[in-house]
């Protein structure tokens, strides 16, 4: 008797370990193990490049998570990011003020996603079909409009990645090393990590997490994803909620596209291959159930970082990067199996 009572809390603690904590432990383990094998892996320069190069994936995964929680999926997101990045670059090269070169793609993204949302919500075409069609349209449109020409020659201020947090305080020119006051120099490595895209990633993740968790609109996404009919009976309209979901997804996709476009000095006019797959992987590994109704955006951001870190770690332990995709596949599989295992344990514990 007493034994069962004593056991209960321990078991509860063990199995209520959330996906977010598991991911944090995974990331920590990866950094410790690979850091011991090759210390250069944990050098701030490498951490910076991992975060900087993948912040846009994490931001896009936030929107994807919202869509998947609502019980839908979007496979057009990779091509849309490619299209928006080209638009953003083309606007900047054409001499449009930098702010508009950032803002216009975001607006376009929201409109495209709301169009898809309308097809899903009001005309009731399954999201996988709508976004599959849109994927063809965007991908074909992108290549045939740009003719595969890379876009380059954007003004320096266009590149968000070169803005550091310090620059904002010290008002230095972007891209130039700010003259760091003596009092702050000890903190410089930390500030170096916090480039604009990384700050975006942090604030957008926290903002979206708060929105999903604490607002009525955010909760309604879970309600519709969990059981659309029950949600309707509670007075949450499926259609309007889905429109909102796709608009939010459009916002994050647009921001992700701007982060993507402003990071390299050349914008390729092809969509990064399998980008949608990486984004969906981040959402799923982050604990978003593909069946809808559960998951958080903090998990998806952590998962995006973990996936990026694994990719970088392979290089540092001298494994050919060609194995990266296989590692990703195993990662999804392990996550999903762990989730199924945990649910069964929980089911048994009850």
């Amino acid at each position, binding site marked *: 008797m007493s034994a069962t009572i004593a056991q209960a809390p321990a078991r509860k603690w063990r199995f209520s370990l959330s996906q977010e904590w598991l991911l944090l432990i995974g990331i920590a383990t990866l950094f410790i193990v690979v850091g011991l094998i090759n210390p250069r892996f944990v050098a701030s320069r490498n951490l910076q490049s991992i975060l900087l190069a993948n912040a846009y994936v994490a931001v896009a995964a936030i929107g994807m998570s919202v869509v998947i929680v609502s019980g839908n999926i979007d496979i057009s997101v990779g091509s849309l990011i490619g299209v928006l990045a080209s638009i953003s670059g083309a606007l900047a090269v054409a001499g449009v003020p930098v702010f508009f070169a950032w803002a216009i793609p975001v607006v376009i993204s929201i409109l495209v996603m709301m169009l898809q949302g309308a097809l899903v919500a009001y005309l009731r075409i399954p999201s996988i079909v709508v976004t599959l069609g849109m994927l063809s349209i965007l991908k*074909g449109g992108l290549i045939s409009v740009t003719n595969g020409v890379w876009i380059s020659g954007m003004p320096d201020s266009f590149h968000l990645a070169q803005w550091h947090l310090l620059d904002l305080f010290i008002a230095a020119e972007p891209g130039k090393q700010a003259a760091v006051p003596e009092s702050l120099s000890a903190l410089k490595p930390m500030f170096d990590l916090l480039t604009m895209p990384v700050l975006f990633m942090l604030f957008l993740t926290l903002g979206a997490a708060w929105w999903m968790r604490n607002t009525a609109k955010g909760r309604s996404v879970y309600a519709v994803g969990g059981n659309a009919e029950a949600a309707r009976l509670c007075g949450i309209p499926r259609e309007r909620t889905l429109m909102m979901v796709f608009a939010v997804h459009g916002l994050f996709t647009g921001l992700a596209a701007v982060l993507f476009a402003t990071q390299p000095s050349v914008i390729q006019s092809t969509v990064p291959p399998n980008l949608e797959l990486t984004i969906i992987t981040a959402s799923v590994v982050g604990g978003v159930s593909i069946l809808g109704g559960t998951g958080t955006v903090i998990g998806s951001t952590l998962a995006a970082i973990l996936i990026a870190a694994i990719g970088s770690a392979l290089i540092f332990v001298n494994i050919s990067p060609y194995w990266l995709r296989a590692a990703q596949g195993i990662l*999804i599989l392990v996550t999903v199996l762990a989730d199924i295992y945990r649910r069964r344990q929980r089911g048994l514990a009850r």
Partner: protein
Amino acid sequence: MSATEARAPKRLPLAPHEIVLVVILAIALAVLATLSDRFFTLDNLLNQGRLMTEVGLIAMPMTFVIVTGGIDLSVGSTMGLCAILLGYSWKNFGFPLELAIVFALLVGTVAGFINGWFITRLKVPPLIMTISTLALYRGLAEGISQAHSVRGYPEGFYLLGQGEVWGVPTQLWLLVVAIVIFAVILARTTFGRSLYAIGYNETGARFSGLPVDRIKLAIYTASGLMAGLAAWIFVSRVSTTRSDMGTGIELDVIAAVVLGGTSIFGGVGTIAGTVLGLLLIQLLKDGLALTGVKGDATIVVIGAVLILSILITNFAQRRREQGR
């Protein structure tokens, strides 16, 4: 009026969505044939048949899978893995070519079986399972080959992909046989009817005593096998093996199946519809290319046709339901 419309489909050989497709196909053919005199020639049409064989072969089991309410996104990667293993086992392990082909087909079958096993035994949702093997199988293909290609196959190997039998591309015969077999299974056998039952209501099918798990395991395995077969044909057609073979083919396949009227929710769909979807996509691609539309713009049209055809069918269906 509407009452007769509602009853009519039962007596027609084709379901309403397929009629929509036949009409679109006829219009497309007529327009394209007038725009380009090279389009409506036997040579061109047979060549298009050659080009659509791989997608067509994979679309057959995909129709089954989607009819049961599942999906298989890993077919393109399975194809890549099979192609790499075909080339590698022949060149690097020194297998005779025949054995290498059998090995590749076997690998495809096992790859499909793994999908099916996880989906049925561990209840992993098909979308997730096949997304993870989409990454895994492609990753294995890339890892094993280290992005090196294999070429220099003996001349006889190209008969399947580049040769002709009785004036028709060799692989087109295979596709025709596959279409007939899969169509008969889906429409005329208990197994085929069970697929609809599972897609329409899986719990109901289970309670009716159907071996749901075994049937699902069988169709995912078949999907892997057909991906392996498509890999063999693909390697033979393009004379080389690369790890990125079949990338994105799952989207072409699903587009054809869905365009063919198979509901992504399961329970509805026919092989005839899938074949019409295949033909429409391939002929649109080809016809538009011949009339001077750049290759990449053609997939824009296909995306639009996909969404439009589903819209038209949805509207027609809703009109009929309101008529009742």
